[in-house]
């Protein structure tokens, strides 16, 4: 695993980015994201009939000249964004080691968090574990990046994850809709992750799904011969004859599994991206994620 990628240059590059949302949310403060409410931004929204007391500066004098009726221009309100970053912290995220999978996943989460914090928006980190897991408070402003780092650093992946139930626990306490970023290996049955993503959709969140896998999972380095595989989450054991054919079969299954996730996300209006942890984080953040339309 590479050393700490959060160099000054990397951070300054992140500051240039802004998350893109496909939905309008009710923010709490003025920000840079459009809100369904009318406000005072520069972005024109609609016209309405003049009523006494309206600010005369918003009267559209051109319409008055053509129709002899007074209309005032209504503008969109621009608000700040509430983002929720969900990081899978189950035992499978520690395979083959915490440094090779969970840490890169948390780096992705931190990079996206920094983008949000740099735009004076709100970010809240959630660790998805068996039960409810942990969640940070809302952070705002780039100075809170340290808190984000400490929060993710304190996490220790372990246990079995039921995505929908864990997400449900976190979403119970969610008050403001916003952008949800789910970072997981998605090594779970299709029904399970679909249920979880549908739950996020039900809360009117703009969802991004980032699938993280280590190189060892993409291309398992097992020796040929008889092996007994033990599931890191439920300790189930499976005996297997590992050879070239088995390797090809596994990779085919993985490709099919990933395609199913991608397909579901596409159909559900969810941004999806796949990150293998031996790739450069900068390349992923600055090339892959913009390509799927995550940034403006």
């Amino acid at each position, binding site marked *: 695993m590479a050393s700490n990628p959060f160099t000054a240059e990397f951070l300054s590059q992140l500051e240039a980015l802004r998350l893109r949302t496909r939905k309008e949310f009710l923010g709490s403060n003025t920000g840079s994201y459009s809100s369904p409410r009318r406000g005072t931004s520069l972005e024109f929204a609609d016209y309405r009939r003049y009523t006494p007391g309206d600010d005369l500066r918003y009267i559209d004098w051109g319409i008055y000249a053509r129709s002899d009726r007074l209309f005032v221009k209504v503008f969109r309100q621009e608000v700040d964004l509430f983002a929720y970053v969900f990081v899978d912290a189950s*035992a499978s995220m520690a*395979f083959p080691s915490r440094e090779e999978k969970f840490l890169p996943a948390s780096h992705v989460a931190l990079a996206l968090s920094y983008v949000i914090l740099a735009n004076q928006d709100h970010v809240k980190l959630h660790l998805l574990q068996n039960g409810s897991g942990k969640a940070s408070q809302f952070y705002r402003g780039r100075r809170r990046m340290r808190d984000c780092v400490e929060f993710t650093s304190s996490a220790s992946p372990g246990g079995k994850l039921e995505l929908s139930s864990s997400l449900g626990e976190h979403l119970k306490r969610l008050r403001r809709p916003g952008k949800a970023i789910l970072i997981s*290996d998605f*090594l779970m049955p299709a029904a399970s992750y679909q249920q979880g993503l549908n739950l996020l959709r039900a809360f009117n969140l703009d969802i991004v799904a980032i699938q993280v896998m280590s190189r060892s999972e993409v291309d398992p380095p097992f020796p040929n011969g*008889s*092996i007994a*595989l033990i599931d890191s989450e439920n300790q189930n054991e499976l005996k297997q004859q590992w050879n070239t054919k088995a390797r090809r*079969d*596994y990779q085919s299954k993985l490709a099919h599994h990933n395609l199913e996730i991608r397909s579901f996300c596409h159909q559900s209006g969810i941004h999806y991206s796949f990150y293998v942890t031996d790739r450069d984080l900068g390349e992923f953040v600055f090339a892959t994620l913009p390509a799927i339309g995550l940034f403006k």
Partner: protein
Amino acid sequence: MEFLNPTALFGLLALPLLLIPYLIRRKPRRLVFSSLLLFLESGAQASGRPLGRINLPPLFFLQLLFLFLLVAALSEPVFSVRPTNVAVIVDNSASMQALEDGTTRFALAKEKLGTVLDEVGTAGQVDVYLTTPRLAKLNATVLTPAQALGLVKNLQTYDLGDAVIDYDQAFSQLAQEQKYERIYFLTDHPTTGQTAATRVISVGQPKGNLAVTGFDVHRGSLLDARMQASVMVVNFSTREEKVKVSLKADGATLASRDLAVAAEKSATATFDGFAERPAYEAEIDTRDALPLDNHRFAVAPGSRNLRILVITPRPKAAASLRSIKGVNVDVISPAEYGKTDRTGYGLEIFHFSSPEQLPENPALFILPPESSSLVDLGPPTSNVQVSTWREPHGLTRYVNFSLFRPTYSRPLKPQTAGQVIIESPNGALAFAVEQRSTRYLTLGFDPLPYLGRENLPMSVFTLNVLDWFLESGGARSQATGEPIPLSSIDSGDSLTTPDGETITLKRGNGYFSATFHQGVYRRLHGGASEYFARNLDDLGESDLRTSAPVRLRGHSGNGASASVLFSFWPYLLLASFLLLLVEWFVFPRWATPRLGLASGGFRRGWRQLMSR
């Protein structure tokens, strides 16, 4: 196709052992993986069975083939062409009478011979040989296989031990001289180093056995008419046996004893006070492997009186022995010894004299003038004190050695295996030897003249000496094969064998040598009967647990025998080593990287090695 060393084929039974390292190696390595989701989906690969599917690599089959070829090569396979000129050598020694599930080994050998002669074909020429009493051909003209089989079917074993034969040399010589293409040897001995031209067909398995190995009948003492007997039984097995020992004469049981014989030990049963009979039989009541040695025969001592021939330059000293009741003494000078007929004497006493060679009769040597094959003589000493004596022993019984002080003596230095009976600080004074059942005693002092009560310790010793020789006289039996001396044959003399066959003796026959069967031989001579006992006297025949193997070194130089055999085991050996080389290059597990064998196989092997 035949195998010269078929024992090696048992190695094939060990081939499945090759699976063991593969089964151990294929014990699955336990590896933790993030999720088994995708493996479970490919369920066809997973196995719920404990051992899973046995998936053997090509290396296993390569090694299996290598081992198979190696075992096949070791068994020395040969393609044989049907031989036409063969010799059949049948072991007819006593041990071939041993029973194998109720059938004698000799009968089993005959059965196997039928199979063997089938190989020869009807056009074959066969000679039949027996091994005892010596290796000799039976047929004068060449036999057909059917004739040879008929001849062998009528053969019987002899109650003889194995003849001393260097089988390897003898077979080689036969093959060369008689141009035999193959020699079949049927025996109960195991074989080592079987050759292409010589086939040893072994019958019988090692087993325990009980044997009567000793049977002596003698008088109680010089003056006692009653008889004594001792029967020695040896247990050639690994467990204690209890047997009933019976003493028989004329078909009637005189006495019997129960005897326990420990494993691999001997025990002796003694019988006293029975009447004199011409011949006796000792029998043990057991159903063991070899019935032959459950019997032993002996004849009674020839006379109650001891006839002594004294050869001495001092006749007066020797004549004193006549004062002992039951002793007949003839005294001659040493010069007359060669001309004297010595038959019928129970003891020869050489007093200050010695013969050129050991006599056939038991002999007492008193202060021989020079060293002999039995003893060397030391310097003379006087009034020597006896320091040690063997006890209990018939020669030292009742002798008060504190009063036993010879005035003149010469210490003896034994030159052969025997027993020192009396010893002084300077050396032995009495040395006893028993050779071929004949007793010899050498004294380093002079017990003569016999003075009765005037020198009681010495007189007691002299009487013991006469008793000791009397013990061994008369009832002595000899081994089967030992000829019976036939002196002065008259017309009408005959000899009856143990089988009941009566043979008319002719003048000029000095010996009757066909004593191949155990038992009592009765000679009718001038209306009187003389008895001779012959017994199996070879412990090697009775000990059926270990037979000396027939060692064949295979230096038969007969080209004809090679022509009927094509030995291809060297090719198999070569093929197996080629396979070994292939295995080495394809799977070079023991190579090191420095060897530079950086082939794909090498890397794979190296990885396997490092992953263990």
